[in-house]
């Protein structure tokens, strides 16, 4: 399995080469100056880092539990972001907080309910009604709820 440190260095190299390539091909002369001034040293430095990572032999072993935990957390984070995109903050946040507290943190049902209610109350009473901020409604609720 390719090590994460090599993937990270490779990603950096890919970012810089693509950014420099895009600047050279698509940007007009005036607009490409700084992206090139910054991007070209970036390509060289990230290449140096990538080569040094490829040459490095030793690597820190991480436990399979931590690796599994990382993947789970990234999936949770993705679920939070996507649920809020679809349901909005007012509905999506309590749902996801309850889901996380119940499924990931294995909390008791009353902690789950209090957590979800707290999140909804803060969003509804502090942000929407208190501060008067229009928070993101999501894609789905506006189809059913008239604001």
């Amino acid at each position, binding site marked *: 399995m390719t090590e994460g440190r090599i993937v990270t260095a490779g990603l950096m190299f890919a970012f810089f080469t693509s950014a420099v390539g895009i600047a050279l091909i698509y940007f007009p002369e005036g607009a490409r100056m700084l992206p090139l001034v910054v991007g070209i040293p970036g390509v060289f430095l990230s290449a*140096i880092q990538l080569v040094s990572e490829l040459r490095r032999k030793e690597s820190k072993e991480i436990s399979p539990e931590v690796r599994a935990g990382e993947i789970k957390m990234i999936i949770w984070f*993705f679920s939070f*972001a996507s649920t809020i995109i679809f349901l909005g903050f007012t509905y999506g946040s309590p749902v996801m907080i309850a889901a996380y507290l119940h499924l990931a943190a294995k909390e008791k049902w009353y902690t789950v309910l209090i957590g979800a209610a707290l999140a909804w109350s803060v969003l509804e009473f502090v942000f929407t009604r208190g501060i008067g901020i229009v928070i993101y409604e999501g894609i789905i609720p506006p189809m059913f709820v008239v604001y």
Partner: protein
Amino acid sequence: MHLDVAFGTLFNLLTDPYLIGLMLIAVPLGAFFGAMPGLGGKLGVVLLIPFVFGMEPIAGAVLLLTMHSVVHTGGSIPSILFGIPGDGTSTAVVLDGYEMTRNGEGGRALGASFGASGIGGVLGAVFLGMLLPVLEPIVLAFSPAEFFLLAILGITFIATLSGKNVVKGLVLGLLGLMVAFVGLDPSTGGPRYTFGHLFLWDGIDIITAVLAMYAIPEMIALGSGQGAVDYGDGASKRYKISEVWDGILDVFRHWKLTLRTSLIGAVIGLIPGLGGDAASWICYGHAVQSSKTPERFGKGAVEGVIAPETANNSKEGGALLPTLFFAVPGSSGMALLLGAFLMLGIQPGPTIVTENLDLVWTLIWALAVANVLCVVILVALTPWLGSLANVRPPLLIPFVLVFALLGSYLSSAAWENLILIFFLGCLGYMCRRHSWPRPPFVIGVVLGPVAEDSLHKALALWGPSFFLRPLSLILIAMIIGSIVFYVWRTRRENALEGIGHD
């Protein structure tokens, strides 16, 4: 010196129930987040960002700065009671603070820490206030040429101070700059790196970048069990206020040390990138060197608590200076504050001295008052501080995620930011996991627009000859100096390692 403005703003701050009320909310919150290993003060500021939307700029800035300024005071609590630093800057306090607790002097160590933090914070603010009249003509003499070079200096400083990972630091600093170039080009008006998405025309906002680089990776790490903490036997013990009071008096008994380390801390705070760890360790070293009985250090010497704690808090006064007057944040925490200030409509930079002096003084006083309030509140809470061990930080993960997403959305009212923060957050976690220093990225994002705007203005005014202006030459010398210093330091470290191996 504008004494009328200086003392008028102090009077306004102290007599405004709204501002004092905000500070009374922010102080315990800041201390709590600082005291929870795995959470940290930056997350506290992150959580507060959505709440300052719609606030008056001064009120929002006071709330956030208050919270930020007391984080280190809270951070010393787990260092002293459980031997677990609340944040990186509280590591030096563990050496003697935890030893004092093991010797049965935990209350006294807490008192020394609170007292030293309070006095350090106040002296740091006074230091900043006293520099203001000296600094005003210097700041106003800066032209776009100098601001461009200052931005480059800020990034170089931070990258070269990224420990042994200088290439990684430079790469991430440059990546931050590249991210800052996303949006409409200021000279031609054409879109850059927007890939046909309108929401990217305004660029990637600082708040989203900072949240993705700090809040998200910390939550992923905490949720995957990397922040698990064992509080040991010190948990839930009760401490007496009289013991704490004895510790506070220790700060006055060692008043010369307190003054010296406050000054050292404030000066270190001025230097972008040097930050908290350096301030507390340098001052700890100074306390050892200047002591007549250095053999007591590491075994529970109260001076070993006082020195790093004064430095930790006084450096915030120094660090506010480049952030406010040059828009060059010296640390990731200051970058976060700078982003929040911009969001509130406060434009840091040289004009703040002429156009917004009231705000500058209000922030200076807020820094001082927050530190005093924090001491009072923490002393009152002393008997229950041991109960911190019962708090379960992982419970806060879903709330931090929601508020980070909310802060990101509100910063530019674009739901697409929720997608952006996911990808940047994953990148941030990879950086955290593989020891890529994240502060240079944030500083790059913050300084990118300043650098680009200043460069275009400087080129329009003087052409390439702007590099030859006297102040420009000084800044170029400083940039070269910081790189030479790094090379020298690396060679020396390698040589020392070589001696060690022999």
